[in-house]
């Protein structure tokens, strides 16, 4: 740890006992409309005069565009417009980009003079129907001059590699090495250095609903209204106005429910810009919905794609001293979020272990693939996987029990600052592990494993212990640079609460798009807890970006914590006013009043009471019953800023606190490996998560199972595969394999609750956790199954090819 003067942490809170609604697995408030098929997704919206857009995509991974002839397409039935990339570049500026050097890796809604990946859009057609638009796409003639493609990140960084962006001068968009703690000392003093090379290939969220937008540009007012299933970072949506070359206060982006996201609809601006640009051109509302092929090849949200060279400094007794990480990340052709995925890793890079030093070298490579975006875990799940494979390897090399080596290193005192400077607010890693060992019937499976081995069957147990951070700060966008261009520090969330004249409560959400998370249910339960009402009686509305309060939205498992803070803040303001009003009405001293059961009453005199409804109707309608300075109405808002962010040190040896609410989990899958076919099946799966206090336990359990299912996909089935020429071989669901109900086992879920000292009710985020654990656990399980054969898999997904190759290699080592 550095010896830095740390700013004070927020005050440690005491948490309410005897909660009524927080902690209840109530039926979700969102569900009835979805159950009835009235979800109101973007594809369900029609407006009079609406036209349809379709995008022509590049069949080349890397090529110059030497000509586009759209004449025949323009003349096709039902076509209103064809816009090429060159034309689009006149109509719109580049897309919002948080990358290291947007001027040099410029990202536009359509390619202009060069295409950089298979699937990049080169032109858009607007027609009376999607069918007609696609008919017209086939009539557009594009002349390409193919260029050599680069698809391997390490080859992309080598001298002489074809450049993805000529202006960048290199395929390395970012490189830096960070040292935290005393790396030299820890490695010098180590008894054993455990090394490995690991490869995690890209998979992605692939929600069943693609991204779409319905845009309406009003030439009379110059205002652009866009409905879209991406609404996050409301605070940053003014950048879309910049792209559209309109004033920020002439843009309104309105949310609609999204059919899943898992990060891939986090700030998805391209469809909105394409639809907006088309609408402005044709003077009609235009709907642009990605189809599945559009989305797989061009979602701009592929997941992490990493090569790791790692060294772990170990003492013989199993103590981990430090870790030296060298990682190359394949970002694809653009880099919209910079190396933020590594910020997510650095937030919890040491896992639950008390090691004292970290070296982290990251190189961002550009290649001819679709770019990365966000995928559940946002790069921290990859770190979990890497670290747990290393701990597993260390245990084998030192002949230590996998459970014992983890306990040997557990952090036990909190708050704990890890070498990077981030803090773990609270935790009970032994408690989680104990529960997991019991829930998984660990001893039984170890016995079964031994028995099976004698029969020639390969059973493996994959016990891992790892972190799930929540609620990121703004600093992780810019602490990569010594002189950042925009060292932003705001990452708020806002809620407005209104009490109407009947005492009914309406909550307005900004930027808290519905993705399948449960923002409405969370807010309803939190409001019910504050106001003693029924959660199903709370009305929820969503406000678009215009007139919206500053807000960040979901991502990084931040929603519940941030909404809680905003609800608490808005409630405090409302109750303060209601208290004053009640005291005035009852002619009592405000200090003599207390909130009980939905109203304010005089302490000890329950007959002297005003319910919230009593107070509200008076405030709404009877101004003269109140003092001069009291305004009519009962409504207030809270802009809740991130409660615990500290700045990085100038030398970047301490990145400050940027992801403080640290959850933890233990996953224990039991697998059987079929040596003949290289396939993996599950015999059992237990998972225990600690996300602090839970608002709706069943909802969190649902996210754990769903996240684990996606982790199973990443570990065994899902990969965006590009061949040596950059052709995307997995361009449909026939080849991009999503787990069905038969690939996902029944999970036994356990909960452990170690509250955060800093948040309302001690809540931490937990939506990403399942996927942050499963790939690590499954890889450890497979290697556990193969260990007695001397085989080990270090590449995800673990396909039959990779498993068979590992088995064959071990056999030839044995016989050779």
């Amino acid at each position, binding site marked *: 740890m550095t010896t830095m003067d740390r700013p004070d942490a927020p005050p440690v809170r005491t948490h309410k006992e005897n909660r009524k609604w927080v902690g209840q*697995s109530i*039926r*979700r408030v*969102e*569900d*009835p*409309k*979805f*159950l*009835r*098929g*009235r*979800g109101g*997704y973007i*594809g*369900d919206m*029609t407006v009079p005069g609406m036209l349809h857009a379709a995008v022509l995509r590049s069949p080349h991974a890397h090529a110059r565009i030497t000509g586009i002839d759209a004449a025949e397409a323009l003349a096709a039935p039902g076509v209103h417009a064809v816009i090429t990339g060159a034309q689009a570049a006149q109509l719109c500026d580049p897309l919002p980009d948080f990358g290291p050097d947007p001027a040099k890796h410029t990202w536009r809604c359509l390619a202009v003079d060069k295409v950089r990946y298979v699937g990049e859009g080169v032109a858009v057609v607007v027609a009376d129907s999607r*069918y007609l638009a696609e008919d017209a796409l086939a009539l557009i003639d594009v002349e390409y001059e193919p260029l050599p493609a680069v698809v391997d990140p390490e080859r992309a960084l080598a001298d002489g590699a074809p450049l993805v962006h000529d202006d960048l001068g290199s395929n390395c968009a970012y490189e830096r090495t960070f040292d935290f703690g005393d790396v030299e000392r820890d490695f010098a003093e180590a008894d054993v250095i455990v090394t490995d090379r690991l490869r995690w290939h890209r998979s992605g*969220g*692939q*929600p*069943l*609903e693609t991204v779409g937008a319905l845009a309406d540009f009003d030439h009379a007012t110059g205002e652009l209204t866009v409905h879209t299933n991406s609404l996050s970072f409301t605070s940053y949506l003014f950048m879309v106005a910049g792209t559209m070359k309109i004033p920020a206060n002439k843009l309104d982006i309105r949310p609609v*429910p*999204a*059919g*899943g*996201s*898992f990060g891939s609809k986090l700030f998805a601006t391209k469809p909105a810009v394409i639809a907006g640009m088309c609408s402005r051109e044709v003077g009609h509302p235009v709907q642009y919905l990605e*189809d*599945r092929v559009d989305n797989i090849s061009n979602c701009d949200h592929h997941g992490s794609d990493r090569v790791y060279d790692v060294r772990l400094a170990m003492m013989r007794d199993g103590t981990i001293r430090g870790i030296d990480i060298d990682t190359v990340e394949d970002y694809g052709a653009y880099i919209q979020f910079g190396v933020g995925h590594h910020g997510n890793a650095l937030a919890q890079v040491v896992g639950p272990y008390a090691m004292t030093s970290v070296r982290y070298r990251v190189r961002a490579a550009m290649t001819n693939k679709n770019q990365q975006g966000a995928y559940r875990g946002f790069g921290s799940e990859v770190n979990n996987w890497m670290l747990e494979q290393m701990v597993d390897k260390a245990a084998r090399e030192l002949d230590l029990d996998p459970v014992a080596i983890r306990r040997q290193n557990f952090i036990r005192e909190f708050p704990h600052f890890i070498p990077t400077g981030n803090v773990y607010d609270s935790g009970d890693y032994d408690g989680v592990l104990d529960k997991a060992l019991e829930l998984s019937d660990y001893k039984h499976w170890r016995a079964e494993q031994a028995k099976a081995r004698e029969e020639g069957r390969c059973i493996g147990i994959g016990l891992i212990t790892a972190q799930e951070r929540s609620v990121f700060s703004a600093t992780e966008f810019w602490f990569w640079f010594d002189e950042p261009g925009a060292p932003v520090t705001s990452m708020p969330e806002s809620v407005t609460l209104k009490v109407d004249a009947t005492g009914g409560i309406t909550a307005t959400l900004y930027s808290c798009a*519905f*993705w*399948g*998370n*449960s923002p409405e249910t969370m807010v309803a339960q939190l409001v019910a807890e504050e106001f003693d009402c029924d959660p199903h009686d709370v009305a929820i509305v969503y406000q678009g970006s215009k007139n919206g309060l500053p807000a960040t939205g979901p991502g990084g498992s931040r929603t519940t914590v941030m909404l809680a803070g905003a609800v608490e803040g808005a409630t405090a303001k409302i109750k303060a006013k209601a208290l004053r009003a009640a005291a005035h009405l009852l002619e009592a001293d405000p200090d003599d009043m207390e909130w009980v059961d939905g109203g304010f009453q005089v302490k000890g005199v329950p007959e002297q009471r005003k319910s919230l409804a009593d107070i509200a109707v008076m405030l709404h309608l009877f101004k003269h019953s109140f003092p001069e300075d009291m305004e009519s109405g009962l409504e207030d808002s809270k802009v809740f800023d991130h409660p615990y962010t500290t700045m990085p040190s100038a030398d970047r040896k301490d990145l400050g606190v940027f992801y403080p609410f640290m959850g933890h989990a233990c996953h224990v899958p039991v697998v059987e490996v079929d040596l003949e076919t290289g396939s993996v099946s599950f015999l059992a799966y237990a998972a225990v998560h600690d996300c602090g206090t839970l608002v709706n336990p*069943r*909802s969190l359990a*649902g*996210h754990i*199972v*769903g*996240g*684990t*299912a*996606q982790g199973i996909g990443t570990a065994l089935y899902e990969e965006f595969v590009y061949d040596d020429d950059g052709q995307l071989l997995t361009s*449909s*669901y*026939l080849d991009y394999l*999503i787990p*069905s*109900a*038969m690939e*996902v086992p*029944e*999970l036994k879920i356990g909960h452990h609750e170690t509250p955060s000292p800093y948040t309302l009710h001690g809540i931490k985020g937990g939506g990403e956790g*399942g996927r942050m654990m499963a790939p690590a656990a499954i890889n450890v399980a497979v290697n556990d199954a193969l260990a007695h054969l001397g085989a080990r898999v270090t590449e995800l997904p673990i396909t039959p090819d990779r498993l068979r190759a590992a088995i064959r290699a071990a056999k030839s080592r044995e016989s050779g």
Partner: protein
Amino acid sequence: MPRHEVTLTVNGRTSTVSVEPRKLLVDVLREDLGLTGTHVGCEHGVCGTCTVLRDGESIRSCTTFAVQVDGAEIRTVEGLAKGAELHPLQDEFWDKQGLQCGYCTPGMLMRACEIIEGNPDVTHDQVREGIASNLCRCTGYQFITEAVCAAAARMKADSAETTGAQA
């Protein structure tokens, strides 16, 4: 291209639409009949988001031209509830949190109808294998399976009651 008249009885209501032969059933339901409960997920028959019932059997409406089901009885999610009263499957999905984003839900509900209607004694394992035809990206299938089993048990008990009452 000449259009064809297609007559569909959807959730008990018969209508005739005039469509190109190439128009997919899912698009006819959503656009011509305004029933947007059936969703588009992949348009190549893999994900099952578009599942509806044709004459009691589940089909993929994204790989079916509307002309292919001229004269058929189609059931979609909009036909499950009776006014304010949810179908037991819908109610159990709600109770067990068998949905998160809701996008696969209509197709999943229609497939579940077929599974239960064909086999009121359906087991947990049979349900899980049965719903393997429909992808869900959110739930990991566990609470869906629970919901379908609960609905099956409830519907069996309800029909036993009805039979008992009539006896």
